[in-house]
């Protein structure tokens, strides 16, 4: 379709405005972390890095960051194992209920978080409490792992579908047993898919707030929960501003890794 010159210019402007809408709020968070004032009125009355040092020493935020990292690592580890197992079963075997299984894997992320949250909350209450186990970091990890399985599964199953089982068969013809074939052939083939899945799972867990609300025990505060609890306290506003800015800056890391990964997968798929 040959677009007229005015149409091209109009599209260019519309897209420019679209990208502005996407990025202005993120930029505002960064700028606002240097705001000396406790209110969010625009324009800020001046510039200061004071709150950055205050935030650095804030025990609550630090502790919450640490809890978030632990929850994310735990959930990612579980999701890696379970997601990979399901991916191998679905991609390399035929069995009754295979489609249903792929559906159930997606369910925890497709249903509203609050439904998953209260379902797990009441289940933990009825099953774990009589055993003397209360809600805590452990239950957060279980909740997060449940909805992280799908991203690992998706990545690994897509890779397994693209690489047929003939490589393993070739390895076995050459005398390798199943384990040897897995370690030397299959694992290297799915490694970058596992890594991409782990990255997504960690990001998903690190960012989650709803399921966390219902599975965290007293005193367990992940970073999103900490931000949510402190957001409406004027006293804490400057520290929340800095933490928010740090999170915006940190999101560059997964983007960079994802770019590197997709470059990797591109070279790999050429083999």
């Amino acid at each position, binding site marked *: 379709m040959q677009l007229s010159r005015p149409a091209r210019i109009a599209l260019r402007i519309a*897209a420019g405005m679209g990208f502005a809408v996407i990025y202005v709020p993120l930029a505002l968070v960064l700028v606002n972390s240097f705001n000396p004032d406790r209110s969010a009125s*625009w324009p800020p009355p001046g510039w200061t890095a004071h709150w950055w040092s205050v935030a650095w020493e804030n025990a609550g935020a630090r502790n919450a960051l640490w809890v978030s990292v632990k929850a994310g690592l735990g959930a990612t580890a579980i999701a890696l194992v379970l997601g990979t197992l399901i991916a191998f079963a679905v991609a390399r075997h035929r069995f009754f209920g295979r489609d249903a299984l792929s559906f159930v894997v997606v369910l925890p992320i497709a249903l509203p978080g*609050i439904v998953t949250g209260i379902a797990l909350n009441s289940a933990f209450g009825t099953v774990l409490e009589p055993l003397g186990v209360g809600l805590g970091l452990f239950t957060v990890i279980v909740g997060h792992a449940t909805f992280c399985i799908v991203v690992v599964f998706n990545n690994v199953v897509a890779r397994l579908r693209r690489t047929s089982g003939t490589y393993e068969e070739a390895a076995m013809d050459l005398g390798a047993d199943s384990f040897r074939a897995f370690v030397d052939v299959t694992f290297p083939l799915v490694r970058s898919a596992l890594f991409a899945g782990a990255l997504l799972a960690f990001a998903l867990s690190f960012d989650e707030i709803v399921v966390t609300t219902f599975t965290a025990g007293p005193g367990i505060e992940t970073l999103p929960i900490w931000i949510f609890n402190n957001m409406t306290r004027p006293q804490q506003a400057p520290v929340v501003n800095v933490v928010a800015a740090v999170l915006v800056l940190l999101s560059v890391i997964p983007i960079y890794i994802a770019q590197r990964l997709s470059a990797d997968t591109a070279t790999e798929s050429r083999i």
Partner: protein
Amino acid sequence: MTATLPAAGRSPVRRLAGLLHRRPRLRLSLLLTAPLLWLAVLYLGSLAILFISAFWTTNSFTSEVVKVWSTDNFHELFTTPVFRQVILRSVGVALAVTVLCAVIAFPVAFYTARVARPRWRPWLVVAILTPLWASYLVKVYAWRLILSEGGLADWMLKPLGLDGPGFGLPATVMTLTYLWLPYMILPIHTALEQLPAGLMDASADLGARPGRTFRSVVLPMVLPSVAAGSVFTFSLSLGDYITVQIVGGKTQLIGNLVYSNIELNLPMAAALGTVPVVVIVLYLLAMRRTGALSSL
């Protein structure tokens, strides 16, 4: 590695490998035991109990759950005006967010897929994806900053003699639109990018003006992708209750009702929780007819 092959053949590891290789059913059950325990027993079990408890009731004096089968909760759900109002409002918000996302996403995707120089396009895709990695809560917080009194929105509208919308229903719709916009841009971008240029040339050769080509050729081919994007925008908006709490002022959506009933009346909360699930499933079924789900 001095062991000869026949010797290695008798090692326990090698025998186990052989056993697993000869018995695919055993291999499959080893693969599936742990995931099924987790997903089918823990997760689906919890969900099933939750939905069964929607048919229980709560003693209004002791707040204790009475485990007697009754449809009172659902009856209350459909007859109480507040509940009906909130359910309709939530569906309305989800639809409004979906329409707004589609309207904003289309020109952006058209630019990134067909107007921008091919050399730039991968970077533009990265630029669309980037906000998805930024924290959900931080993005909502950004809108709280923008919409707060004397904030950026007020400042920008002041020269026009207007005030910003403040916190409330419009703020909720705006923030949700912002949050889920990338989920709409990406599928539309992909569809537009894969559109063969020959089709549009053919349409022009047959005498169609750009407007006609757009309506009769481009739009029908991109619509399944819009539907695919709308699955995300609709269901994510319908289940949300955090955004409303942060920028919604006193606005209540279905998620807030679920949340406020959890402590005192869990069966009612469970009944309320079935509403978004049922609506989302209906929406998915409707979208499946457009072929959207196969392009997800």
